């Protein structure tokens, strides 16, 4: 969740919501998938809701900049992942910023496979997509990220 939401507070909030959802709807678990996959799916859904809300807030901020001044700060901020070694933090932050700009599905597929290191089978089950679809999403995400990183380094020069 931390990797998808790229925000410590939001990740904790989404984790709490996931626990509550699991507690409330464990009775409706049909055992069509493993419990772990089912919980991951709930977590993913909660994360997506948060991402969509954040995007909506950012859109609103663009229309009415005086409405939520703190939104500009969060938009410009680079996510410092607490689980990454200090010498890699800078590069990782640039990568996370680029991932944030990817389309939703590409972002999820890339994060689950390349960042979290999950296998394709697991990712397909969580995302409820075919292997081909996930492979395609990861491939497109890589191309988009390459473009974004090139642009980033061009602007630095």
């Amino acid at each position, binding site marked *: 969740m931390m990797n998808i939401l790229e925000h410590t507070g939001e990740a904790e909030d989404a984790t709490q919501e996931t*626990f*509550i959802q699991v507690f409330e709807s464990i009775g409706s678990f049909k055992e069509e998938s493993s419990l772990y996959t089912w919980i991951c799916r709930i977590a993913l859904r909660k994360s997506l809701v948060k991402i969509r809300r954040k995007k909506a807030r950012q859109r609103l901020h663009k229309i009415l900049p005086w409405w939520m001044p703190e939104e500009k700060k969060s938009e410009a901020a680079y996510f410092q992942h*607490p689980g990454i070694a200090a010498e890699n933090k800078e590069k990782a932050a640039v990568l996370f910023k680029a991932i944030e700009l990817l389309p939703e599905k590409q972002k999820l597929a890339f994060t689950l496979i*390349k960042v979290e290191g999950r296998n394709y089978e697991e990712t397909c089950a969580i995302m409820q997509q075919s292997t081909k679809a996930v492979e395609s999403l990861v491939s497109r995400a890589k191309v988009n990220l390459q473009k974004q990183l090139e642009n980033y380094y061009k602007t630095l020069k």
Partner: protein
Amino acid sequence: MKKKATPLVDEHLQSLQGMHQVGTDDFFYTRLKARMEKNHASQGWHFPLKPVWVVSTMLLLLVMNVFMLSQQVRLKQTATPGNASLQSFAQSYDQAIPSY
């Protein structure tokens, strides 16, 4: 499908090597428990009795009352000249309109 070379992405992915999973802090369970208790307490309020619905309904009724009152006042104001013209019409034919 031919894969495009993405050296910058691969280079940046290298920086994630050795990344360890981040757990929740010590007070996570306490906060979760408090939130669940709060949710449980707020579940006592059902749909029509939730404070937000009660206040909204009261406001709606107030607005409707004000509207109806203003309509009544306007009707009374417009009814007066009409009544006078009816009186004069009745007088011209030597008829009387009872005023009770």
